[in-house]
């Protein structure tokens, strides 16, 4: 599980592309195509209640010609900007048209759809394929913009943030789910974070220790790496189940299992990191009279640190995802909503469970990459 390329570092990816050859046109145009195609699909679905299987499916045109016109013009402007805008106007034109398309879509989803729900007690608006497609288009468009003018990304982001603040959203199914279970949500989110926070440090320490041992003792290397890898192959639900009779219900077995799963990325990366310290460096360290301990602290550890952090990043992402399964043994976490949603057959509830997990993972990812970047040995630029 090697690193996803950190956004700010993608230029350093080593393939040495000529910098000038950035040509996101194709990507931006893909975004436009997906955005326009999405208009064909139902944008939202009006459900009479949260479990009703069917509902009125509405495309953007169904929401009102104005919204359709706004969104279509946004995408067309984007296409025009990609084709025609050159020089100093290009970046603002791209950013503006993307912001336009994104804002119009969001507005359609909020202001446009709010009228639908009316005053039926349990009626709600579910986000449908067209809206997801539009989201994908905006996401892709954002990366196209990022490739060309990263700073201008702020424009669509700010526009959406402002809209999120101003526009109504209470009619959306996910939001309704949240509002009905706000307290529970807060508790489970906290519990989720707690599970990750409690299981990560032992996984880190233990993983580092095992990785170190594997790097040091040739004889143990394959055994230790193999064992850590083997743990990965036990399905998480099975591990939870098997631990049940041993440690009982609740957070304890969940944390134990999570620690065991979290080991692998840390072990592998620590091992790789220590192995990647050039032998010449170790030779030099020994040669200047460092003891084994000093060598470890002053040379190996700093040099292996980026790998270790990479491993911790991997473990963290894995644990954030894994903690969703903990609910099966009554350990809570955001999996609660996944389980309830599955149980009650309510997609909105599943979304309420999964969206924060993805958001958490993204946040963790960003933080860890920043850390890895800070820890990378300086002056390696050659």
């Amino acid at each position, binding site marked *: 599980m090697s690193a996803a390329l950190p956004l700010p570092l993608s230029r350093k990816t080593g393939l040495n592309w000529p910098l000038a050859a950035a040509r996101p046109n194709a990507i931006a145009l893909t975004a436009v195509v997906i955005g326009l195609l999405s208009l064909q699909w139902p944008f939202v679905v009006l459900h009479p209640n*949260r479990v*009703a299987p069917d509902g009125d499916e509405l495309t953007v045109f169904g929401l009102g010609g104005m919204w359709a016109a706004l969104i279509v013009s946004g995408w067309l402007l984007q296409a025009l900007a990609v084709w025609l805008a050159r020089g100093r106007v290009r970046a603002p034109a791209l950013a503006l048209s993307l912001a336009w398309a994104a804002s119009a879509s969001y507005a359609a989803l909020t202001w446009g759809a709010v009228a639908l729900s009316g005053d039926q007690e349990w009626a709600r608006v579910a986000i449908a394929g067209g809206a997801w497609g539009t989201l994908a288009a905006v996401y892709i468009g954002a990366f196209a913009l990022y490739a060309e003018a990263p700073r201008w990304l702020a424009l669509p982001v700010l526009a959406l943030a402002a809209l999120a603040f101003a526009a109504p959203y209470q009619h959306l199914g996910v939001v309704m789910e949240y509002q009905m279970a706000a307290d529970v949500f807060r508790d489970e989110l906290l519990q989720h974070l707690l599970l990750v926070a409690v299981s990560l440090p032992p996984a880190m320490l233990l993983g580092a220790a095992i990785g170190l041992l594997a790097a040091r003792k040739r004889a143990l290397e394959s055994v230790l790496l193999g064992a850590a890898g083997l743990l990965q192959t036990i399905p998480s639900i099975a591990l939870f189940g098997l631990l049940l009779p041993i440690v009982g219900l609740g957070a304890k077995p969940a944390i134990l299992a999570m620690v065991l799963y979290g080991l692998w990325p840390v072990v592998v990366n620590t091992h790789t990191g220590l192995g990647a310290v050039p032998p010449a460096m170790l030779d030099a360290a020994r040669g200047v009279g460092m003891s084994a301990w000093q060598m470890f602290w002053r040379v190996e550890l700093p040099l292996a640190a980026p790998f270790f952090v990479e491993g911790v990043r991997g473990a963290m992402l894995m644990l954030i995802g894994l903690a969703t399964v903990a609910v099966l043994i009554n350990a809570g976490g955001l999996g609660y909503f996944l389980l309830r949603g599955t149980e*009650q057959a*309510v997609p909105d*509830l599943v979304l309420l469970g999964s969206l924060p997990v993805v958001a958490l993972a993204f946040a963790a990812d960003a933080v860890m990459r920043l850390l890895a970047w800070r820890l990378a040995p300086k002056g390696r630029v050659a």
Partner: protein
Amino acid sequence: ASGDAIVIGSKIDTEGALLCPLVGLTLKAHGIKVIEKCGTGATQVVRKALLAGEIDVYPEYTGNAPYLIKNVRFTPGTFRDAASGHAAGAAADLAQNGIVWLKPAPANVTYGFAMPAKLAAAQGITSLTQLAAYINAGKPFKVVVSQEFVDRADGLKAFEHAYGFKLAPSQLIILPGGNTAQTESAAARGTSGANAAMAYSTDGQLAAMGLVGLNDTGAAADIYQPLLTIRSEALKKYPAIPAIIEPVFATLDTATLSRLNARIVVGGEPGTKVAEKYLREKGFLK
């Protein structure tokens, strides 16, 4: 159980999410310290927790006794009758495990089948007898069921026996660990061609999903009355519990449970809120 608090558990399903806070809130209202571990796990898990003393009480169903109480041979048919079933189960559980059964609620939570209302109306099916005829006529039928329903003696087999039909494997979509909301949602959506689902008689979401329940006209199934099971040690500590809980359970008939379940599943309200509202409504809580 820890300290002087009563630890409440429940099954990990909709009714568990309702009954658990219902018990908890009621006890709390009478000044009993309560720790809620709602949604403890699947039936066997909660039961084990109770036997191990990890929890003190949880809501069970009378008809489950043969599956929970090992090594006791109940006379066949015992659980077809509410009173005799409760008496037999309570006696056996107390004798064997020191678990006390409180008085059950006057509801019957039994298995049944549900079909899309449109289909049922078109085919004129309102009862399981008519369903059997429909099936035996070789008309398209595909039912989503849980593993447990297929495996248990009082599940699918009992229905097949009582109504005289036999489902081919291709007519079954079996979800291990599946619950009625899942099965019903699949039937309502027609996922994978399903047009029927295993259902409970107290499921509140059937109407909202556009399904109708086909109830057990031929009394094929045992009777499942909700009741609170409690460890006798805990009962000794708080002898007042039956007096507090039994009146509440007494108000829970099938229709009420169904309505309350609907609030949770259809309305999406948390079990605690539904329970609290109900208790206030009935005056158990001020």
